[in-house]
């Protein structure tokens, strides 16, 4: 018997026995491959150049049977069409022609989606569908990295009304499988999933991964809306699917600046991943620490010492330290120093840390300024509210801005007669050369003049100089965000702290922990995209 006929006879047997796993194992599409597949391809090339001949062969070897007994299966028109495409794929595929292979695999996967959609027999295609989607996704990502081939593809579709990227086309095909699983009626929504419902999060994960890895996670909004509308709870699915889904859902929320939602997803994913999956834990933790910092929770030393935290600890430990102390200079330096690493985790993460952490830095700088300047009033005045003088904050903010522009602390002049051997005239000359700015500042400008800062650097924006109005604006915004507790007495130029008595000290009353304020502000009954049990 010819190899093609033998192959189809075996396939018929798997359909009859409802053996989806063996069916998947036989319907291979990519290397490594046993010799039989190359022989099959050779036979198809030789005897089946005509598509109609393939169709006739399939009709003969895979007849649709009537009166199928309970517990058995048979072919159906969608499957016959899929097998025709499968043989065409093997006849025409050339693994050295990436673009051609991709087009053939796209057509085959589309055909698989149609066969899978059959309400009576489609379920047997679940394993094959998963396998084909994995192959297509892999090939699409490889293709997407080849600018020359993408250009060629764009030229081929130049006349099309709606031009879609390969990522988009593949994501759409994979979502067909997802929708088939989601709308399957073999089990109710809030019950252990059976039938095609088993595949809901498998296909959701494949789609989310493809979109996220290619900077198109915004296209996942419709998929997540569908999950919310119809999907069974995530907790009904195996751990690997749960963790993967929560990781990509978290990435989606990071990309949309919903850091608290994202942190909840990453926290759950992290705690559900056993320690031996260190690489997965490392990736989850990279985003979890960033998102938690953005909601006012800093990583402990114990966390940063974990093995999976080693690649991120240098960056995050310094960022946390800068937040603790309000050291904006250290903050900017850390961001610049680790920019390539942060950028490799996605631009949304870098910009999130760069801009959204600023409020915490301002808060800490205001707190530090208060600690350095506040003198509690004595006697009759002792009942007056504790205050932070805004001019002091203006001084420290200006100091930070100048440091960012390259100003350095002026060298100190040694007291006379103390240090033998040092030329006191030289020291005086150095001090005098510090320029006119040194009369009211400990800083001296850099030799070539202040650095020109790009807009993302600088305390406010680039070289914008800090004014009293800026300081009042910053304090007002911190009060509005509940990072400071008190009010601005504009005419006196102070931030007055409220509730000192209840809290026991002015500093704890004026600067409540930011995590509480952020938690109150971002509290939600559920995280969009995450279906929980009723």
């Amino acid at each position: 018997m010819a190899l093609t006929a033998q192959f189809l006879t075996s396939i018929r047997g798997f359909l009859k026995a409802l053996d989806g796993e063996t069916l998947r194992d036989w319907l291979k599409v990519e290397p490594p491959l046993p010799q039989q597949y190359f022989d099959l391809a050779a036979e198809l090339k030789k005897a089946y150049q005509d598509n109609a001949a393939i169709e006739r062969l399939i009709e003969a070897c895979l007849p649709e049977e009537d009166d199928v007994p309970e517990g058995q299966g048979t072919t159906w028109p969608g499957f016959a069409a899929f097998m025709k495409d499968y043989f065409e794929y093997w006849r025409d595929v050339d693994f050295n022609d990436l673009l051609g292979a991709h087009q053939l695999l796209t057509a085959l996967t589309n055909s698989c989606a149609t066969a899978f959609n059959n309400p009576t027999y489609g379920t047997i295609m679940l394993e094959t569908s998963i396998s084909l989607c994995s192959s297509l996704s892999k090939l699409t990502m490889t293709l997407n990295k080849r600018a020359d081939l993408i250009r060629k593809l764009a030229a081929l579709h130049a006349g099309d009304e709606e031009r879609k990227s390969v990522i988009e086309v593949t994501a759409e095909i994979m979502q067909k499988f997802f929708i088939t699983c989601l709308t399957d009626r073999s089990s109710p929504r809030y019950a252990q999933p059976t039938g095609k419902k088993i595949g809901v999060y498998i296909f959701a994960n494949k789609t989310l991964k493809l979109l996220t890895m290619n900077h198109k996670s915004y296209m996942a909004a419709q998929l997540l809306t569908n999950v919310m509308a119809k999907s069974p709870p995530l907790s009904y699915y195996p751990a690997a699917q749960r963790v993967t889904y929560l990781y990509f859902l978290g990435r989606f929320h990071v990309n949309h600046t919903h850091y608290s939602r994202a942190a909840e997803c990453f926290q759950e994913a992290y705690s559900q991943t056993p320690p031996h999956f260190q690489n997965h834990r490392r990736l989850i933790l990279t985003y979890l620490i960033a998102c938690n910092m953005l909601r006012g929770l800093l990583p402990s030393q114990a966390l940063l010492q974990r093995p999976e935290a080693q690649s991120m600890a240098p960056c995050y430990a310094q960022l946390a330290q800068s937040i603790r102390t309000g050291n904006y200079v250290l903050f900017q330096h850390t961001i610049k120093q680790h920019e390539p690493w942060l950028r490799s985790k996605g631009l949304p993460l870098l910009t999130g840390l760069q801009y959204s952490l600023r409020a915490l830095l301002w808060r800490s700088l205001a707190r530090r300024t208060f600690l350095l300047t506040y003198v509690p009033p004595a006697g009759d005045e002792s009942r007056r509210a504790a205050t932070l003088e805004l001019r002091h904050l203006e001084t420290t903010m200006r100091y930070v801005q100048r440091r960012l522009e390259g100003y350095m602390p002026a060298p100190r002049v040694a007291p006379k007669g103390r240090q033998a051997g040092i030329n006191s005239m030289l020291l005086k000359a150095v001090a005098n050369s510090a320029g006119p700015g040194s009369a009211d500042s400990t800083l001296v400008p850099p030799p070539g003049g202040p650095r020109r800062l790009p807009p993302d650097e600088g305390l406010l924006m680039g070289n914008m100089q800090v004014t009293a109005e800026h300081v009042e604006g910053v304090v007002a915004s911190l009060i509005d965000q509940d990072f400071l507790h008190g009010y601005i007495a504009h005419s006196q130029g102070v931030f007055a702290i409220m509730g000192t008595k209840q809290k026991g000290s002015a500093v704890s009353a004026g600067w409540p922990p930011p995590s509480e304020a952020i938690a109150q502000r971002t509290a939600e009954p559920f995280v969009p995209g995450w279906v929980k049990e009723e």
Partner: protein
Amino acid sequence: MAAPSSKQGDKPAAEPAKPETSQQQEKSAAALEEDDEFEDFPVEDWPAEETEAAAATTTTGGGNGTTTQHLWEESWDDDDTTDDFSTQLREELKKVEASKRR
């Protein structure tokens, strides 16, 4: 500046430390080379007991709190004003105030 291996309590100065910079850049580059794809897990499922979520629940009654609680700090404000950055700010404030009184 706080080196990655510095102990808790070490205070970073405002100045970027030059000798350590290149070393840390190498580290960043090494991190960049790691494979960042979230790979499929080699197994489909695992028992909850293998995870930290389970460990956190079992240690709740142990008197030491849950594992998760040790990982995040909610109140992290630093009251120590003897570090270099605070010292520099203090001197600047002093000088600015003195210049205004003149």
